[in-house]
């Protein structure tokens, strides 16, 4: 392996080059800079562990967004209060006043809104509030949720027409894996065959790749390896996210 993986103290070590992160922040930039007649909502959806929240987090930092993460118990009021708290505004008493407060702040500040774990509230009336906020502000809004989110949103009228882009999260590529190795295992060279193995066993999950890489880094530290390949790693276990098999 060349020493391209051995980048210590990279001046700007960010998650930006990871596929999903790059797609997400680019789509939000387009939503912010769109011309007036285009809709402004973006949906990012995909299985858990594929780096959606990482993408949302980077986008929030990069584009200075308001970020809320939904919980399954949330009502319309809970959603509005959470957004207002994120904006640092004292919530008014009624739902429609709060909706107006949120819309006004979005319009004035020009900052986008990110709603993570949207699938928790997609079956509830809180979804209407999201639409009301969009109608009231025409701000760029990013909805993040699980694989079923687009089909669940279909149940709500007038949602599909307001969507600028649907972004299906992509499984982690081998390039993503090598970028993650650069971020998390600076100082330890990981050979291509080991990286390929990690990538294969992780089934596209950025989270699992990160966990495996961290295990490799820790193991390398203990054993004093400068570089690791598949042979050095041997029969040590990988993290696959599956429940342990019973051996009787």
């Amino acid at each position, binding site marked *: 392996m060349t020493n391209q993986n051995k980048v210590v103290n990279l001046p700007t070590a960010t998650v930006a080059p990871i596929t999903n992160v790059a797609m997400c922040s680019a789509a939000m930039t387009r939503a912010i800079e769109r011309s007036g007649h285009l809709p402004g909502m973006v949906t990012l959806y995909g299985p858990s562990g594929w780096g959606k929240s990482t993408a949302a987090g980077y986008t929030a*930092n990069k584009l200075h967004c308001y970020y809320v993460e939904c919980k399954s118990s949330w009502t319309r009021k809970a959603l509005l209060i959470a957004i207002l708290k*994120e904006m640092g*505004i004292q919530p008014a008493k009624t739902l429609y006043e709060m909706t107006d407060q949120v819309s006004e702040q979005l319009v004035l500040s020009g900052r986008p809104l990110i709603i993570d774990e949207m699938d928790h509230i997609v079956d509830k009336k809180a979804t209407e509030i999201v639409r009301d906020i969009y109608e009231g502000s025409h701000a760029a809004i990013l909805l993040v949720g699980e694989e079923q989110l687009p089909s669940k949103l279909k149940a709500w009228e007038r949602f599909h027409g307001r969507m600028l882009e649907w972004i299906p999260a992509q499984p982690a590529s081998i390039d993503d894996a090598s970028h993650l190795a650069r*971020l998390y295992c600076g100082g330890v060279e990981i050979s291509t065959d080991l990286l390929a193995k990690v990538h294969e066993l992780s089934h596209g999950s950025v989270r699992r790749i990160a966990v495996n890489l961290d295990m490799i880094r820790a193991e390398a*530290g203990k054993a004093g390896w400068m570089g690791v390949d598949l042979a050095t790693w041997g029969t040590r276990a990988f993290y696959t996210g599956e429940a342990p098999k019973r051996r009787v």
Partner: protein
Amino acid sequence: MAATKTKRKPVHIATSQRYPEGSQIMWGAIRLLRTFTLHDIEGKTRINKSTIRTYVLGLESAGYLERQRPVKAQGRYQKTHWNLVNDTGVDAPRVTRDGKPVTQGRRREQMWRTMRILGEFTIPDLAINASTEEHPVNEGDVKHYCMYLTRAGYLQIVTPGKPGNRPGTGTRQRYRMLKTRYTGPQPPMIQRVHQVFDPNLGVVVWPKGGDA
């Protein structure tokens, strides 16, 4: 003796006194009045007039305010009026006296936001996830900030870190952000006097019963 320059007060005093200070207060008054003179803002906020002038001139250069044409009455120019032309919402724009945007504090803001998104993290996790190209966050920053936030009860240590017998062999400390302790969008501040001040609540949160 020459008059000593009045220094900026520590934030926990500036925000809790009878007439609080700071650009947020001035911006609030500007948004309320829309058209105003320096004197009007002074009357509303009781902040030192030259402080107000510095901020207003900065806002004018940055294009948030517009100066009205000077009016002459009874042979002399009247007080200058400004109009609010670019209202950006509740958060006071942060500008220098010549109207350049202030980006100081963005890293802390990014760390504070990312902690909440990650939930559980180690120091390198947070440094990587909170970094952007414009405002990279280094691990030293993160460590320092996490140490104070843990003391102040925002973070909990899930697995304590352990040093190893050789460099790179230890265990990394894992932190968890307590979701109920997310008090608002503004990151808690570490003051020079080594206190943690939460600007969302307006109180000193560490040490308990500190200098508030």
